[in-house]
């Protein structure tokens, strides 16, 4: 038996799985849930917190009802997705990483959504919109505002 206490291993992938579970349920990582998870996984809270802070997918702040992900992958970038981002930012009045005051939208950028052949691409929640041009952005966002007719999701239309 080693005399110095050895680190305890949570199961393979257990930390990530737990953080994902909290995040998908709460929309972010509240402190109370993190503390409970640390106890349950028998890992120090500091380890759980540093992992959560390391990965871009996790947020410590509540997010908007809808998450807009603007893809800044290479194929999207050279087909000017930074302009889509600018348009979304100006039309919602918040910057990437921020949430609109009414709590409807959070804007995020991602390094690649893997739909490069459809560049430039954005994703709103689960819907991926490809072959975009700046002038379609407003119509797409309208769809996610209650009571406003907007452009349908890609699942409901042929583009």
């Amino acid at each position, binding site marked *: 038996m080693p005399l110095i206490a050895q680190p305890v*291993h*949570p199961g*393979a*992938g*257990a*930390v*990530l*799985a737990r*953080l*994902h579970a909290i995040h998908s349920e709460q929309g972010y990582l509240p402190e109370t849930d993190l503390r409970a998870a640390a106890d349950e996984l028998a*890992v120090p809270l500091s*380890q759980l917190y*540093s*992992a959560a802070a*390391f*990965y*871009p*997918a*996790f947020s410590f702040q509540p997010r908007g009802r809808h998450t807009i992900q603007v893809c*800044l*992958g*290479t*194929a*999207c*970038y*050279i*087909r*000017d997705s930074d*302009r889509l981002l*600018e*348009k979304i930012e*100006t*039309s919602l009045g918040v910057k990437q990483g921020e949430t609109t005051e009414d709590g409807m939208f959070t804007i995020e950028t*991602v*390094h*690649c*959504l*893997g*739909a*490069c*052949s*459809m*560049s430039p*691409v954005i994703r709103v929640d*689960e819907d*991926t*919109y*490809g*072959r975009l*041009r*700046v*002038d379609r952005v407003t119509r797409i966002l309208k769809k996610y505002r209650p009571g406003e007719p907007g452009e*349908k*999701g*890609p*699942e*409901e*239309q*042929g*583009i």
Partner: protein
Amino acid sequence: MKIKTPSDLEKLRDHGQSMLFPQGPRVSVGMATCGLAAGAGAVFDAFRQAADNLRFDLTLVATGCIGYCQEEPIVDVRMPGLGRVLYARMTPEGAGRLIRSLASGELPHENALASVPEEGPDIPKSAEVLSGLLTINTLPFYAKQHKIILRNSGLIDPRSIEEYAVRGGYHSLRLALLHLSPQDVIDEITRSGLRGRGGGGFPTGEKWQVCSHAAGAEKTIICNADEGDPGAYMDRTVLESDPYTVIEGMTIGGYAIGASHGYVYVRNEYPLAIERIHHAIETSRESGLLGEDILGSDFSFSIEVIRGAGAFVCGEETALIASIEGGLGEPRPRPPYPAVNGLWGKPTIINNVKTWASVAAIVEKGAEWYAGIGIEGNTGTAVFSLVGKIANTGLVEIPLGLSLDEMIQGIGGGGLDGKRVKAVQTGGPSGGCIPADLFHLPIDYESLKQAGSIMGSGGMVVMDEDTCMVDVARYFLNFTMEESCGKCTPCREGTRYMYTILTRIIEGEATPEDLALLEEIAMWVKGASLCGLGQTAPNPVLSTLRYFRDDYDAHVSEKRCPAGVCRALIRLIIEPEQCTGCGLCLRECPVDAVRGEKKAPHSIDADLCTRCRTCYDICPEGAVEIVR
């Protein structure tokens, strides 16, 4: 059904035969992420609706991606007695018309892309199915492709283990488990010449051999599906379109090295891939093709999926392992390599999705067959995502050794909108930009490395005359700066400093000394960083400095951006003679910098204008000009 013996496998295959080749018509809609982004979901629903309305009996299937993403949504229609045809750019309205034609017993011409000669019964094998319609393998996009990794993609229902079995699935697993020793399998892979398709290019068989000899009874298999390179989506497509081939490859790998457990680590940004691999693992477990005593052998194997969380560095194998263990996804120095000291310090084989997807085919058809494809030292095939400013975007699988020119001009059809291709970026942020005058080079690990890039995992982003190479270099440095985990100083600080200099260049504030400093820092970051991320981060800068020095000089000495991209160095004006005053740019300008009355020529307020070029993009008259 439970598959316990080879004859059970035959039954599975027979069952799949009737699904893949039904007696009635079969309509398959490509519904991988790219197809869905192009509207395949609505097309699928429209087929269902139209068939229901006409009470037309057909098998409607959601398949994966057949590769020709440019033409999505793509629909594969199989009509017994008539033939099999691919239809491109399908719309819900088109779907309705197509069903009406099928119901009246004919394959229509509208939207027909190519006919598919196939092995199934009841289908005319040769001849023109429709007059003037080419077969798929004579289309320029497909003519030079050789599909091994993508052999089932877009052809089968990725949720159906039966259809996978019809295409030869589990034949290799049966062969390995019941007729080959673990060493036989390793030898077969070694002799095939297969090299790691994640980009490292390390001989796969050699790696397996090391792991097989490593001390310790407990060994692990990992499939690296943390496909982080921007501009690359090969691994996503394989998982979404043919997940069973990855499972079969991993199981054979587990048998070869003596592992009983495997993990698939998938990028967080790929929800559909995660869902489909989960489903395939579950189905395999229910069928007994994963679990205890597979196919009556005494070999047991299980697989779990782990969802990443958005950190690019986790694509590096030691960082990926650290991430699975629950710590920070930070790399550690190698050696020791994971084959000896991996997950929880135990021997671990970690290979890319495409490497695993190649394994079953090699075991089935033999090392000699595989080694005969490609060129010496670079055998077999690799998959590339051909994207950016190119006419035909899509996923392409080629024998290694094909030239860049055959890839970009031949398969890709040249530049987008007829523009001149300037360069191709390979290997993601670790790679470089190869100029058009080197397109005679063959695509293999060594040639691309010599040219200052790398083959990488398969991203090929094509750039044209409107792409600024300094801006591209800065884009990649921004990427690596943000993704640097911060553990080692050269990468953490060096990428930040290079990014700062590149920003000065594109803003027209750099001096010639800055260029020299940039080059010097690049060499240090390359030489002194801890892992592959930092060691290769300077490649986009070094390769563009090497081949596109004129672009840099124009920014530094003349304060000019020849491509008309860098905002500080351009102006936008509206040509009054060409402007019709339609008001589109006025409406879409994000900063309200456009002025003008309806039906009268508009103008741009240079003080407000941020040079985002939105007006330039959307003007239907081409009246907006970039002053460079």
